[in-house]
């Protein structure tokens, strides 16, 4: 297994001797480092499902109170709970990874201004994230607003 694109790193002119096509090693997927990245990319499928579920809920909202009640009661099904726990874990996993990388992608300066140091940005991201989560939880559960 494991062929890369046949023209990966293609030369600008025809090769002067016959080359073997670029290969990925057969165990390319097994290194711990790349397994983390594959998992990261795989979480995209979970968001697809989350989105699908959200559309389902919105449709039920439009169909009237009984449809809505049906959706609400189905949410207490253990499989749904498991799904949402997995979705939450994915979001946290992706956020932690993104927060780690985001500060490094800041340019050294934006015009004359220098962005704050990496660890400050890193901390700020968590503060903002947890802050918004708290506010939304309190709002959705009716405690505030």
């Amino acid at each position, binding site marked *: 297994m494991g062929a*890369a*694109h046949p*023209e*990966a*790193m*293609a*030369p*600008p*002119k025809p*090769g002067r*001797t*016959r*080359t*073997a*096509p*670029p*290969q*990925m*090693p*057969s*165990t*390319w997927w*097994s*290194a711990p*480092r*790349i397994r983390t*990245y594959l998992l990261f990319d795989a979480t995209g499928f979970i968001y697809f499902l989350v989105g699908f579920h959200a559309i389902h809920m919105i449709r039920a909202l439009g169909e009237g109170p009984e449809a809505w009640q049906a959706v609400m009661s189905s949410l207490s099904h253990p499989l749904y709970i498991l799904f949402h726990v997995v979705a939450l874990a994915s979001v946290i996993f992706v956020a932690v990874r993104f927060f780690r*990388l985001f500060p*490094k*992608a*800041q*340019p*050294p*300066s934006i015009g004359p201004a220098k962005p704050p140091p990496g660890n400050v940005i890193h901390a700020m991201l968590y503060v903002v994230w947890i802050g918004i989560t708290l506010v939304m939880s309190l709002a959705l559960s009716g405690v505030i607003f």
Partner: protein
Amino acid sequence: MPTTEKTIVLTRFDPDKDETPRKQEYQVPCEPSWKVLDAVNFIKDELDSTISYRWSCRMAVCGSCGMMVNGEPKLTCKAALDEYGSRVEIEPLANFPIVRDLVVELDGFMHKFESVKPWIIRAKERAADMENLNEKGTYSQSTEELADFKQFSMCINCMLCYSACPVVANEPEFLGPAAIALGHRYNLDNRDEGTEERHEIFRGEGTVFSCSYANECSEVCPKNVDPAAAINQAKFGAVIDWAKGLVLPRGGSN
């Protein structure tokens, strides 16, 4: 010195004799202090002088000896052999066409490298630029200004990042980590005035926006260049320049 015997498996490929690459095994008595390259050199000197591979400095600075070791791109002169078990599989760098045994074709990379204009670009010729030079004939640069780009200037062109990058594997035109990091290094250098030109190249055919911030390149880089950071910083700059270009045709200031 007490040695441990390991099985070293090398990829072999001679285009005149082999249809496709094959594997060959060697039993090598390995010393505890050896790097992976020492085992390969032992094979060439003592067991099979027909193997071909690149190496030179053996101190992790020339960038010649990159190979896949048990599936991971490594600088074989730096990777300690005793971190591997009794079977070590050495293959040519992934994502590059294979020329012979462990030797890959680098023409594609060299072309990408040259296309980012990796030199100091000044608006004026040196003779007309003299007022910007101090009395010793050098440009003024503070330690902070040097620190802005220093990390990105440490690339030894070993190309492990290209082997690790999932985008390079699938998109042949993608400029790739080392080339973009090098272009970005010049963009950040206060002596350079060619940022806009390079950002145009970054938005061009080999577009930096192909990068999905997998960060694999930075994970394998033996010199901690962090090319992923360079690419994503470059994306930011490339967008700003594009926006400026819309508002102020012919580009604003540098």
